[in-house]
């Protein structure tokens, strides 16, 4: 291996070690690593622009604007209170309903925002029921990661894969949606078996809880009714546009004949259009909304793309790909390796940097084999692998962090025991279904 390639590998490993340890902010670590490879000329400016996936960054940006604008209306608190009331004081119903709502919202919006906004309500409900909230919180984490895996926009690894491979929203729904529905059913069954016994409340307590929750007025959560309605309308519109983003030209051509019927919109364009419509319609202060954008996350992604770009530029990725091609006999074998490697590695590294490194590898494999199934294998492994450990995905860290702040510690080992079980069961089931679809 050439010296420059060794330097690129060393910078890559050093940066990933910093990201895993997080003593330095992950965005700073990624930017620093990127700065070194740019400074020493491994990634020249022209190549840098190619390696940074603006499709991912703009999609995240657009969705952040939509979510931060909608948040001001009280939409998420409204959903949380409605969910709590629907549970009617039954702990099992609380577990199931919050898991389903978390999965659904995570499929459409980012997982961190979803759990950040639903966890306080879940803690409140558990407090009213006088039950340990840990089983509910752990279930919420798994539901968020499974729900997020179902769509192109649900989880950062899917956004990155969709953008790099040019996959559509509907393709994600078709290939991963049913797998995640099956996995949600399995998850709820597992959680019931593991925690069901500890979720008993007396009829008196249940009545007391129903009374307390009925006193909550979900309408009081709506801070701005007009913004609430506009946010819901724009989110629905954006989701509808995602369904038709690859063939929007055909539809627009009917009413606007000058539009090219072959035209399609990238998911990032859909998100930015939605953000522009909501800002224009709601008249919210753009300064306030733009201030809330998670710029560190965007710079984190940017830095990662450049660091992985250095491995591409120096031929490291191509070398790994050629070794894999020599040793892998079939697409099914490649699917197996990609799925399980992504699942286990993303439980350790965090699934975002793992996906960033895996994408160019799969692109290189595409020169000799059909990599279409491998994208789904990667999405499955990276998203569900995040369930394995407390640091596997951002949602895990957020919920466990909140729980600790509220006095309910979830230890690394406690999470690992359940997380690894969920990882192996859900990835195993998902891999089996992908195998049936693409190999058998």
């Amino acid at each position, binding site marked *: 291996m050439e010296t420059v390639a060794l330097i690129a590998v060393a910078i890559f490993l050093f940066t990933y070690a910093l990201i895993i340890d997080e003593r330095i902010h992950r965005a700073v670590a990624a930017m620093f690593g990127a700065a070194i490879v740019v400074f020493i000329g491994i990634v020249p400016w022209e190549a840098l622009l190619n390696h940074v996936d603006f499709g991912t960054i703009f999609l995240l940006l657009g969705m952040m604007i939509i979510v931060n604008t909608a948040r001001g209306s009280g939409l998420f608190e409204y959903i949380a209170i409605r969910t709590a009331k629907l549970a009617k004081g039954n702990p099992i119903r609380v577990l199931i309903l919050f898991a389903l709502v978390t999965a659904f919202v995570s499929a459409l919006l980012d997982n961190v925002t979803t759990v950040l906004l639903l966890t306080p309500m879940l803690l409140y409900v558990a407090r009213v029921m006088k039950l340990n909230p840990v089983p509910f919180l752990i279930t919420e984490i798994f539901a968020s990661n499974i729900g997020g895996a179902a769509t192109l926009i649900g989880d950062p690894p899917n956004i990155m894969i969709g953008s790099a491979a040019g996959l559509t929203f509907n393709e994600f729904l078709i290939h991963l949606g049913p797998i995640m529905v099956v996995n949600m059913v399995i998850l709820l069954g597992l959680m019931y078996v593991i925690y069901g016994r500890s979720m008993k409340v007396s009829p008196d307590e249940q009545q007391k809880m129903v009374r307390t929750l009925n006193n*909550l007025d979900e309408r009081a959560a709506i801070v701005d009714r007009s913004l609430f309605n506009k946010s819901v309308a724009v989110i629905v519109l954006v989701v509808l546009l995602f369904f038709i983003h690859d063939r929007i030209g055909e539809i627009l051509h009917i009413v606007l004949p000058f539009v090219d019927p072959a035209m399609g919109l990238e998911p990032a364009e859909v998100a930015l259009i939605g953000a522009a419509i909501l800002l224009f319609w709601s008249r919210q202060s753009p300064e306030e909304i733009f201030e809330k954008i998670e710029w560190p996350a965007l710079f984190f992604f940017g830095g990662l793309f450049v660091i992985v770009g250095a491995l591409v530029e120096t031929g490291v990725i191509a070398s790994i790909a050629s070794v894999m091609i020599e040793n892998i006999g079939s697409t099914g074998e490649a699917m197996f390796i990609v799925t399980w490697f992504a699942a286990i590695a993303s439980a350790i590294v965090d699934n975002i940097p793992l996906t960033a490194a895996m994408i160019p590898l799969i692109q290189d494999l595409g020169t000799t084999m059909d990599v279409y199934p491998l994208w789904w294998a990667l999405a499955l492994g990276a998203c569900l692998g995040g369930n394995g450990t407390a640091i596997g995905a951002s949602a895990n860290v957020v919920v466990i962090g909140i729980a600790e702040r509220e006095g309910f510690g979830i230890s690394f080992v406690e999470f690992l025991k359940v997380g690894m079980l969920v990882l192996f069961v859900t990835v195993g089931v998902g891999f089996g279904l992908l195998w049936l679809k693409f190999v058998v």
Partner: protein
Amino acid sequence: MGYSSALIQRKYKDIVGKRYESVLKEYGEFLLTEEELFVPEVRSILVPLDLFVHGITDEAIDVLSAYNATISLAYITDAGVLELLGQTLDRSSAEEFRAKKEEYGRQLLEQTAAKLEEHGLSTQTRMFVGHTGDDVVRMAKNYDMVALSRRYADGESADLSISPTVLRICQRVETPALIY
């Protein structure tokens, strides 16, 4: 704190920043607090009366009616005042003064008890010579709540400030205190 716990805290800080605080603040607008969720059981309420309390307000009765509790009305004649009068007046004048004040106390107890009973509250009355502050603090230990007039042990001042004795009692009692 172990390495894994510290690692999660570092990652949490980097991912969430201060967003959780703002989410909590938004929820705080309409969710009950820990204290509000816990409704204490109140079965007995102590209502101290003295020379400067001229009755109980309708607002206070409304609040007291919310609890299914027995109201104990205690009229306390300040022992310090009586001692001072004993030193400055002759014996018969001091006795006459004491008799008048006790008569006032009896009437106040009867009127207040009658007013409370009109609202369906059960009452007990007692009258004694003692310390208007210390004795209330001591007695409060046996009750679930204390209801104090802002004029209690104060004087005949016309302003609406709360009596210093009432404030001191509130600082010292462990049971919930209501000021009317």
